[in-house]
């Protein structure tokens, strides 16, 4: 009895800490500060897009031969970030790793925002964005279908599927907490708001039973996506006969790199939220430790990808070797070495438990990885194109102001919904945390 009582009290605390967050948000001023910043970026995004659409891609730095630039770089980068969310929630759910529970919710939210940014980039990148839907197969008066040999056609499906599944998965997960938020809400407004979006969840046994099934099934669908989507993206490069691209290592290399950058970004957000909102009790050092381990693991695998690439080049010789040479000591060597250093040097700290458990260190490492992975994408796209085959078509690439402004603007696209989520929805899965506590308690 006493135990049960104690447990109930713990539940209440958890409930307060998580579910009451939106209802009585602790850091209002801080939030408004961030949010207005995000809105400013969003405005910048609109300006950049208007400029882009009224003048054409000419406002960017793209040229022949480097006719893919920031757009594709950031597309791959954002999509990569997104992967961690799904990976953490779905994969760890299936493999029944409970430590995920405090992280998965906002990791998934982060995934959603990232995928939206990623999805927007290829469309903005088009020469005639108003015809982007031609990539989709639909009955048209032209009697023409997309070209299914092309990796881009599959990009379209991949990203779309990924977006839908993660959205569904996230919403499904948050449903019970929305209900409890509804129940704890005092003001009428919140009651109605949560009442509507919790779809009349009453939390009786049958609800929970179905919910668990649905959640598990969705997770099962989501996991293969983690692998397939980024493998598919990698074909966008490796399908072309361009030195530095045309390599079989790309699919695993991309997936791992994606997870790597993803874990890093989750770490950043976890630490930030942990500091901003009083969540230390829920996002514990153990969680950071786990994140650190995951980052370290995927990071080392990515490092292996680098090695195998170098080996391939040495083995293949010819143009491949020339490209490797360009990467190591060419005009854009900074991007290669930047990637290598930022990705792997600070990473080594995470071999030590006490660094993994120090929010500061982990934050620093994660930030450097996020930047490093961006540099890697830059290196992949630019160093292969600017000197590919013919000496006569060597060229250079210099991102223009509007390249950068759009990138910054995408920050707005990412942050605005994410901050709204943090503010108005339970950012951490209360129900699952309670489960966890329950199980631990009952296991004794």
């Amino acid at each position, binding site marked *: 009895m006493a135990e049960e009582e104690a447990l109930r009290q713990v539940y209440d605390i958890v409930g307060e800490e998580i579910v009451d967050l939106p209802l009585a948000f602790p850091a209002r001023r801080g939030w408004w500060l961030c949010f207005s910043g995000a809105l400013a970026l969003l405005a910048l995004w609109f300006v950049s897009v208007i400029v882009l659409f009224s003048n054409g891609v000419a406002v960017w730095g793209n040229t022949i031969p480097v006719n893919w630039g920031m757009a594709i770089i950031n597309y791959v980068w954002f999509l990569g970030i997104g992967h961690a969310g799904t990976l953490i929630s779905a994969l760890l759910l299936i493999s029944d790793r409970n430590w995920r529970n405090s992280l998965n919710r906002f990791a998934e939210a982060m995934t959603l925002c990232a995928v939206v940014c990623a999805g927007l980039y290829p469309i903005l990148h088009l*020469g*005639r964005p108003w015809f982007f839907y031609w990539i989709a197969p639909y009955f048209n*008066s032209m009697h023409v279908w*997309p*070209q299914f040999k092309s990796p*881009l056609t599959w990009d379209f499906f991949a990203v779309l599927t990924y977006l839908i599944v993660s959205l569904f998965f996230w919403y499904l997960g948050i449903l019970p907490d929305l209900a409890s938020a509804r129940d704890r809400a005092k003001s009428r407004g919140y009651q109605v708001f949560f009442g509507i979006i919790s779809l009349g969840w009453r939390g009786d046994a049958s609800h929970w039973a179905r919910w668990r099934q649905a959640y598990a099934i969705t997770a099962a669908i989501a996991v293969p996506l983690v692998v397939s989507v980024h493998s598919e993206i990698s074909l966008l490069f490796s399908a072309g006969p361009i030195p530095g691209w045309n390599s079989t290592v790309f699919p695993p290399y991309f997936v791992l790199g994606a997870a790597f950058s993803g874990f890093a970004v989750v770490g950043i957000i976890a630490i930030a939220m942990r500091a901003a909102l009083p969540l230390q009790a829920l996002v514990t050092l153990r969680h950071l430790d786990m994140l650190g381990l995951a980052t370290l693991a995927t990071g080392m695998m990515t490092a292996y990808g680098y090695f195998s690439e170098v080996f391939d080049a040495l083995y293949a010789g010819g143009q491949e070797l020339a490209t490797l040479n360009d990467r190591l000591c060419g005009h854009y060597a900074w991007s290669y070495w930047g990637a290598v250093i930022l990705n792997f040097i600070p990473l080594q700290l995470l071999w030590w438990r006490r660094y993994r458990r120090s929010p500061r260190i982990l934050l620093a490492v994660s930030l450097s990885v996020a930047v490093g992975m961006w540099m890697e994408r830059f290196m992949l796209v630019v160093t292969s194109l600017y000197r590919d085959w013919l000496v*006569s078509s060597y060229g*250079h690439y210099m991102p223009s102001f509007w390249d950068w402004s759009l990138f910054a603007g995408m920050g707005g696209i990412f942050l605005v919904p994410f901050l709204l989520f943090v503010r108005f929805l339970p950012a951490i899965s209360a129900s699952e945390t309670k489960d966890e506590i329950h199980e631990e308690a009952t296991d004794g």
Partner: protein
Amino acid sequence: MTTGWKKALAQLHGQGGRRFWRGLDELADSPDFRKALATEFPGLASLDWQRRDVLRAFGASLALAGLAGCEANPDDRAMPYVVDPEHLVPGHPQLYATAISFAGIAQPVLGVTNVGRPTKLEGNPDHPASRGATDAFTQAALLDLYDPERSQVPRQSGIPIDWDSLDARLAAQAAILDATQGEGFRLLTGATTSPTLLRQIDLLFARWPAARWDVFEPVDDSALHAATRAAFGRRLDVMPLLDRAHATIAFDADPLGPGPYQVLNSLRWSGRRRAFQQGDGRADLLVAEPSPTLTGGRSLDRLVAEPSRIRALVEALARIFGVTREAPALTTKEAQWVERAAKILAASKGRGLVLVGSEQPAETQALGWAIDEKLGNLSVTSQFSEPLRPSPDSDPEQALNALITDMAAGRVNMLAILDANPVYASRQGPAFAAALHKVELSLHAGLWHDETGHACRWHAPLAHGLESWSDGRAADGTAVIGQPLVRPFYTVRPVHTMLAAIGGAFGISDHDLVQQTWTETWGTLQPNWNQTLVKGIAPEPPRVALQPPPVRLLPSVAFARPTGLELLVRPDPTIWDGRLANNPWAQEQPKPVTTLTWDNAVLIAPALAAEHDLADGDEVRLSSDGVSVTGAVWVMPGQASNTVLVHRGYGRRFGEVAHDAGFDVAPLMDQRSVTLTPTGKRRKLAAAQEEHAIDGTDLVRVVDYLDTAPKPPKKPAPSFWEDKPLTRPNWGMSIDLDLCTGCGACVTACNAENNIPMVGREEVRNGRRMHWLRVDRYYEGDPADPKLHVQPVPCMHCEDAPCEMGCPVNAAVHSPEGLNLQVYNRCVGTRTCSSFCPYKVRRFNWADYTGGAPESMKAQRNPNVTVRARGVMEKCTYCIQRISAARIAAKVADHPIADGAVTTACQQVCPTAAISFGDIADPAAEVVKRKASPRNYTLLEEANTRPRTSYSARIGKERGDG
């Protein structure tokens, strides 16, 4: 129907149907009409109402409006003729044999018109000086016709006036001159070969004996004529007969380079070269020159020699054949080269040719002829004739100075300048302009209201060559008659009518004047006249080639090697003396050697650059006794280290396109040496190609003559793709790198044929030029003395094309005829095709390059080629519009497409016939024979894309050559 439209057309009332078109022509520049066009047909250029062409011009805007997916603008109108013009079938292009004059030399062409608009100039295949080929200048000349900045009305001190007031003034003046026997009247024309103009001038000066006629041509033959006067006692033209020359030794001479004789020389050279390829005789070419030229690029052994060394080299060669006794001191390198030259000349005794550039002093040129004389080459490989471009003055430079002094002294009361621009193009420009103020009646007649136009009190707009009747002589001396392809767009006058008006005779049509000339020549007009208009060659008694009189050797004037750097001032390879400066096609045409566009530069050797620590684009000041110009340097591999080369034609002071491009070198024009001082500033130069060194690659293959024995064909590398059946027709191209000189005519021809937009200096710098066909320029070996290579690169039309598998929307697809198609209206612009293309031949419309073009220029566009919209990928199509035309014709006639029925624009224009195109499934086709040659290879075989465009390797080492 907008009111502007109504107003414009209202002006046509009272004109009968037959006069409608003229009426419209005359109207074409009225503001109402322009406004109306803009509102009624956004994008329609002028005077034609054909639906296809209307839509053509819609191109960009249409796609931008998002209609590309569905249909055309729902409310565009069809405007049939009021009375059908005779022989005009809308949709059938009409060809007229005519001629375009370049620096006085007539270039025989066939003008292609679509529903009344000239859209392309082709070489006249029946004319021996063209054989269907033209140079880049002639191709570009078409665009001048549509230049919105062409002068459109007469002007008095800059203010537009009507013709009547100008005519009144001229009439009055003519009366006075009649009284005074033409005292104080001076006529200044550009060089001309037009029998009619010369006849008019003769008549005029018979009437006004006291008057005087001078010729000002910025780049003329006077240096050559001076030399022939010294060597042969008279002014003569000397044409090298490269088709007969088995061994050619060129000293600072560039017969294959740009200029009015380029096509003829290239034809002849390639004739010999092709014969040599087939094992008939030799075609050895040795060149000693200060800076790389097209001729130097073709040479078997190129010696880098500064201008002042040429004399010594020629002497050394002369001494070997016992022509002179002087023994100049030579470096070992020079000695070896001369040695080899002598060996080659001796081997082809009686069929050799020694060419000394006309920039060289007379005695050096004479020495060259002496060698030929000694070896019995002279009468075989050189053709002597009376000057093609007659000039009253033996020394035009002097004559111009004399004219200026006369003007300044007030001895000139009327100066008429016909089609010449001395104020810009002559060194004495400022003095000339100043002196003009002293002239009571100064009249400039030209295509543009240019520098000279501004300096003169009166200005009269001339008609473009394609708008008026004229005649002239082609490079080989045969006479041609130029007939108009279109009525003048503006109220302008043909040059002949203008000259008549100067003589006080008004309303005389150019047509009558030209006919009169030829009636006198032939005795009777018909049937010759009609034949000439059909064939383009005016029958005349054959010109007898003069036997060269014995060469008079001149005492070698000992000249000191100039102190400081030797300066060379040469005409620009793409805009010549500046006459094409306002022509976007010419400006964006990469210079054949530097690949620069939109600018001239100070060309210096790598050594000199290193010495002054200069890089491409660094600004320097060239100064020589008091005068100086500043310009950006361009490091030129293979240039003599103490030589500086600058090009004329830039630094124009008029014209949207022409002005603020490059720098004017006029002040330095008669300097021989300069000092070079960096200013520390930088200028942005736009080169079409960033890197040129190809050591260790096999992009351009060079084989030994002996290697040209047949080899067993290589079996194709394995591929994932299934083999496609070789059904007929199946198109392919072969480019012979042994014949290509890199002149770039193909690039401009492609612009004209395929509606290729020009993007301007900035975009070229950004790597965004749109040329479908580019001529790559490579250097191999030591930058101080590299081997020079050129390689035209169109789309390879790969059999296994990476671009095709990259495109998500099926815009890049393969046709059963083997064409690698690009469907513009399906393209969404992912640019994957370009990323995947190993040859980077694809071009992307980064911005709306076509919509913003001046209305008048849109009228030039080829109605059979889609105008590409913003955000669309494009590339070489093998001139698919020509293939379609041939296919339909063949279908209707019910026979397979014959070999040669389809010629691509680049193939048709090529003066050396380096490009061959045809059905590779037709065993009889020429392209198949070429591809069967052991010299045949494809670019980037290792990429395994199986290109349909293949190359024939250069023959680096001639038979029996050491």
